[in-house]
């Protein structure tokens, strides 16, 4: 289908984009990669009156390490993560895994990480990863830029802390310490389909082998990606064992609240969420040289 008519504005700087958004308020949407927005417009699920295209805002096209965080600018493409020189490092294995399974390889050349967070699809990949890695999003509002923790950024399906007239400028992923690894486990019917279920896992270990920090999140398990804090609490402070991993998986199954559809029944998806968390934990620990 052809989208509803709209006015197109191309911004060349963050200031210009912000000014357009302030002027048009709720009528305007930011166009970054557009790989979710444009299909939504084609189905007339979204009908913005104004699109503010930020693809020419070169200042927002970066993936860089600064101040203890990995900063991803608003038009950095998914593929920029996949191609980053540091992506092979163990501490970035969660992002590495995600960067290879978002949508499909062509979509990843245009789709953006920040755009995916802002879209906040119930089955998004970056949202679950951001929860597990405890990311933050920099949002520019009238009072200036503010940094929003991902847990409060993700409000509800397709709804975030970005209000009318505001723009998300950057995602920040904390640089984890050396003994950290992650894993992203996604089951999909075919490449590019929405996840049937997906789990993002990131763990770091103390010198004695006990778990120092744990991030566990699910996608396609509710209105938006969800942190399984019960599983995180179970894990932290303990040495990884098969029983502990099983318990974390069970907590994830319990927390998962998916919708039954052609991809599977509610019970199937709940079971799958637990299996994927357990698999993710085993893989992340394996990457740290711990076999459970």
């Amino acid at each position, binding site marked *: 289908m052809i989208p509803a008519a709209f006015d*197109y504005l*191309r911004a060349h700087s963050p200031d210009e984009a912000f000014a357009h958004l302030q002027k048009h308020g709720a009528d305007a949407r930011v166009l970054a990669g557009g790989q979710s927005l*444009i299909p939504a417009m084609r189905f007339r699920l979204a009908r913005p009156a104004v699109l503010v295209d930020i693809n020419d805002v070169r200042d927002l096209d970066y993936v860089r390490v600064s101040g203890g965080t990995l900063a991803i600018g608003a038009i950095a493409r998914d593929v920029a993560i996949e191609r980053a020189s540091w992506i092979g490092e163990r501490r970035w294995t969660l992002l590495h895994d995600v960067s290879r399974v978002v949508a499909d*390889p*062509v*979509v990843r050349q*245009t789709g953006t990480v920040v755009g995916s967070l802002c879209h906040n699809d119930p089955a998004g990949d970056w949202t679950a990863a951001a929860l597990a890695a405890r990311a933050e999003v920099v949002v520019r509002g009238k009072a200036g830029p503010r940094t929003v923790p991902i847990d409060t950024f993700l409000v509800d399906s397709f709804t975030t802390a970005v209000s009318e007239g505001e723009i998300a400028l950057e995602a920040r992923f904390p640089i984890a310490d050396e003994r950290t690894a992650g894993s992203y486990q996604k089951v999909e019917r075919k490449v590019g389909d929405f996840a049937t279920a997906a789990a993002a896992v990131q763990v770091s270990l103390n010198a004695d082998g006990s778990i120092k920090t744990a991030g566990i999140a699910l996608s396609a398990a509710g209105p938006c990606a969800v942190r399984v804090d019960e599983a995180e609490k179970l894990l932290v402070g303990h040495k990884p064992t098969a029983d502990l991993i099983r318990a974390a998986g069970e907590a994830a199954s319990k927390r998962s609240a998916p919708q039954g559809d052609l991809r599977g029944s509610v019970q199937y998806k709940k079971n799958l969420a637990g299996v994927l968390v357990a698999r993710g934990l085993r893989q992340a620990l394996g990457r740290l040289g711990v076999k459970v």
Partner: protein
Amino acid sequence: MKVKVTVNGTVYERDVEPRTLLAYFLREACALTGTHVGCDTSSCGCCVVVMDGDRAVKSCTMFAVQADGHEILTVEGMAAGATLHPLQQAFWDQHGLQCGYCTPGMMLASYALLKHNPTPNEAQIREGLAGNLCRCTGYQNIVKAVQQAAGAIAQPAGAAR
């Protein structure tokens, strides 16, 4: 809205509605019908073109106004006169097409793939083309064609570019 898009080296100046999708701009405003529209929902990859030299994009999921001031390569721009591009030659040699509908998208997705990884192995080709569907299921020969093309581009022989 006035746009100026360079397609296959030729500048096309057209007046388009902002909601015009790049695929339809190419097919209808530029009369370049080699870019096919398969699913129209960003699922099949038939409409893939290359933007600014090395980035494969689904032209059904981009507005023509976004291409204003940019360069687009479509299947019509691959050959140099009567000499087929190594990818086109390889698809011919390896029977990398049956009905041919997915072929332009396959070749342009492969074009961008080879720009970033000139020597992909079989698994990397299969992964790289995972967003392109062939309903004839002719994947084996498509993969062989990309392998041949990669070799031909890496080590041009004779008249090949």
